[in-house]
């Protein structure tokens, strides 16, 4: 779902860059205050995992593939601030070294695949941190996982529309319907994979997932 170079108009990509830049700066400031050594290795390997997972396009509909976004997963496992830092790193490496995603579109891509899904993931983080997450937690994760991907896809269409990159012959609603429909299917995979990976990491490194970020402290879930 990476927006390529040349599809966003300068005001649109600049606006997105300012918003994502601000979110990244705030994330770095929060992490500087709360991050401790215990969580750094998990942060690193999650970045490597998301990079790897995004290379794996799976078939969704005839002639169409999709790949994991990962921002939603990061929001659950690391919280929004660390998630945004990890996702921004992945997207920068993809854009600068692998020609995947336009350089000027970085801000837009970081928002749609990082900031927004990380915030949605952080919203379910509390459910997973309870002693025994049950069926409801899985259900909410699946639904919000789909929503995260569809919202990102819809956001991308909106940015393309604002940039005058959509042909005059198609209506905005038509474009959102097509893009959202494809990504609802991709979102199901996103939700299922997210729940599986969260379960795996919680089993392995519950202490690193908990972490002392401010939001967790407030909820009293810091170990």
């Amino acid at each position, binding site marked *: 779902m990476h927006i390529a170079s040349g599809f966003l108009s300068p005001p649109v990509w600049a606006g997105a860059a300012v918003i994502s830049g601000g979110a990244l700066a705030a994330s770095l400031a929060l992490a500087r205050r709360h991050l401790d050594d215990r969580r750094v290795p998990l942060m690193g390997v999650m970045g490597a995992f998301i990079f790897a997972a995004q290379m794996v396009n799976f078939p969704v509909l005839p002639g169409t593939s999709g790949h994991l976004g990962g921002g939603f997963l990061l929001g659950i496992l690391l919280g929004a601030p660390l998630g945004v830092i990890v996702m921004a790193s992945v997207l920068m490496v993809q854009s600068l070294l692998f020609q995947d995603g336009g350089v000027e579109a970085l801000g837009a891509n970081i928002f749609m695949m990082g900031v927004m899904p990380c915030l949605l993931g952080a919203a379910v983080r509390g459910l997973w941190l309870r002693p025994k997450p049950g069926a409801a937690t899985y259900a909410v994760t699946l639904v919000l996982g789909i929503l995260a991907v569809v919202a990102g896809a819809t956001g991308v269409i909106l940015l393309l529309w604002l940039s005058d990159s959509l042909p005059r012959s198609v209506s905005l609603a038509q474009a959102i319907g097509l893009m959202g429909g494809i990504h609802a299917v991709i979102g199901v995979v996103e939700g299922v994979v997210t729940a599986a990976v969260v379960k795996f990491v919680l089993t392995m490194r519950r202490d690193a997932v908990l972490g*002392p970020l401010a939001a967790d402290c407030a909820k009293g879930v810091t170990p």
Partner: protein
Amino acid sequence: MTSYNRRTLIVGIAIAVLIAGVVSYFASANPDGLEKAQEELGVAGPVHPAVEVPPVAFQEYNLKWIGEGFWSNAVAGVAGAAVVLAILLGVGRLLARGKAKASGAAGT
């Protein structure tokens, strides 16, 4: 480094290498959701000035000198994952500086 952190790195890197180095070779070559939607909507191509970054070492997810192939894809994928890992371990260490002991005992 605690043995816990070492184990996280080993298991995490093993999984990333397996996915980036092996599984990714078998990925679907069909256009992804956005590319497909642009195709169907009739988005002709970039209408704004594009910012081209010349390929340094990688052409998409292959080594630029070799072209497509299993090993080319594997080396490019593992190298990309390694760059992300290195950036995050470096940035993470800087951000965590001075707080290692503060909560180091918690959760053990």
